């Protein structure tokens, strides 16, 4: 903020507060907001990682094995765990948002939020289980 000029008659001099550097620590929702903003880097990484994975797969088994070995690198692993955390975080945000974005009426009455969020979570669980079954069991 630039220093406001001195008061001159009839020209009100408004004070613009400087935002504290740690304002986002003031409440959990602000922290969540900043984390979501920050998460974009990791989510972008997740996309790149997936693209690399597909690329490696296309190159053949040997190339894919190299990719898998590289993924086992602790740095890559840690980055991926963080990215997973953020993606889950986004998913939860999304499910919380869904009942507010969708208004479903049954017999003229608005369906309670839990009825919309519930199936979302259920579908998520089923999809996760399916993926886990394919990856681990299949």
């Amino acid at each position, binding site marked *: 903020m630039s220093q406001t000029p001195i008061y001159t*008659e*009839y020209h009100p001099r408004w004070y613009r507060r400087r935002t504290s550097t740690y304002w986002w620590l003031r409440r959990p929702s602000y922290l969540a907001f900043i984390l979501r903003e920050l998460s974009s880097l990791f989510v972008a990484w997740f996309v790149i990682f997936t693209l690399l994975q597909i690329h490696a797969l296309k190159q053949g088994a040997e190339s894919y094995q190299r990719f898998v070995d590289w993924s086992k690198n602790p740095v890559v692993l840690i980055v991926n765990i963080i990215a997973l955390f953020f993606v889950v975080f986004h998913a939860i945000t999304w499910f919380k948002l869904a009942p507010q974005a969708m208004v479903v009426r049954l017999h003229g009455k608005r369906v309670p939020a839990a009825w919309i969020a519930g199936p979302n979570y259920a579908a998520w669980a089923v999809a996760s289980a399916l993926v886990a079954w394919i990856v681990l069991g299949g």
Partner: protein
Amino acid sequence: MVLVGGGAAGLRAAIAIAQSDPRLSIAVVSKVYPMRSHTVSAEGGAAAVVRPDDSFDEHAYDTISGGDWLCDQDAVEAFVHEAPEEMLRLEHWGCPWSREPDGHIAVRPFGGMKKMRTWFAADKTGFHLLHTLFQTSLKYTRVVRYDECFVTKLLVEEGRAQGVVAIELMSGQVRAITAKAVLLCTGGCGRVFPFTTNANIKNGDGMALAYRAGAPLKDMEFVQYHPTGLPFTGILITEAARAEGGWLLNKDGYRYLQDYNLGTPQPHPVLRSMELGPRDRLSQAFVKEMEKGRTIEGPYGPVVHLDIRHLGEKVIKTKLPFVRELCLKYQNIDPITEMIPVRPVVHYMMGGVHTDINGATPLPGLYAAGEAACVSINGANRLGSNSLSECLVFGARAGRAAAAFAANQPEASSAVLAQAADEQRRLERELLHKTDGRERIAVLREEMQQIMEGSAGIYRSGATLTEAARKLRQLQERFRNIALHDHSRTFNTELIAALELSYMLDVAETIVQSALRREESRGAHQRTDFPARDDQRYLAHSLAYRNADGSCRIEYLPVTITRWPPGERVYGK
């Protein structure tokens, strides 16, 4: 055109002018942002004939008998005819009126009305009406708003109103806004009394401005007490609570209104009967109960109980949500399970700036509408839900009439600018730069309010009014010695409070003087020394003029009677 005030009447007028004359530029000068105006607090509804079983004549008769035959009947007829159209127009502008299941407008019963004709938007009618008007007015780019500008003087030159002087709160700049016509829509003056439903901004500004400029104030002795205000805060519990079937009970749990010629108790609400009687009679009944020792003693004085518990949770939650919200938030009471303590509280001024049926005052170029004006359709007692409709009907009428007047006027003369400069010097010398005052604003204000409550309340007498007039003169003297500690130009609310106090002192004087001269009892004006209505002498409007020496002079003007000769007010039969 300059409009002072941005409530329902002011905004309706602004839109009417914008639609009627494309050449006029319109300034809306308001001391608050328009959506803060006191219209926002109106709860119950707005009356207009809409049902096939209803008629204009019945609405007119209810209004005239409710007003104890002091209404001008030509004005009432115009009012009831135009009200439905205004309500519909609001509907077309988006007002969220409550609906019947088939999508038609729903109406509810209301005190003093024989038929159901009160349009409502749940119990926040005024809020929705004001926001609809305000948001619609944003569409008209020719409406230029001067938000948070406080008007200190009407500019009158060559015998006509030519603009206003206003302080812009944000900068402290005093500016002249010249115009070919001025329309006052500044609302009432409930803050003259200590216990009122009125917001802090209702100080009779427009009334005092007109009075000082030489226009008379009409029927100022008629002050409406609403029978059901919450103690301490004065927050209004809407008449709708009684219209839905609420009961007023004294300390014995007895529906005491049956003792005051207001009908016999029925399990369900009956129009124009018992709890749905007119406001003046209900407030007077409270005082009588108090005298009999049958009220309940609360921490802020005597109260009675408003009981809506028997309506059940569903009705209360769907039809009276705001009533419940107010009780919970401000009184820590849940009306579903508890009775609400209430007492009469100053609510509305039937009187105001004297205007004709088109909102024109006797001062050329000066117009008034809404609560600030007295047309008069409210007579000696206003019926609930007539005032929002009045704001719309007469806001539009006054707007159109003022626009037509302005179209034929020359530009404002240069002499008014000199007047404005004088006014600026006066404000600075007498208030802003004043350092030697000793009287506190709040002390004078409180004394004034106590005088008014004590002498010009629900019941008055010649002796108390004479005493009140004397004390008010003293307060006027003491006001000259007012102390201002705030000498800043930026958002100086102390300066505004001082100016508002000076307005209120003027308005208080006109109330007391008008009440003193009216030696009869009619509607909201009840004299213990003259308990009967006297049509021989007082079937007339009082007009309070300001003399050159600052004192007040009362004259009378006959009431316009067209088709309804004065009769007895009968309720509960």
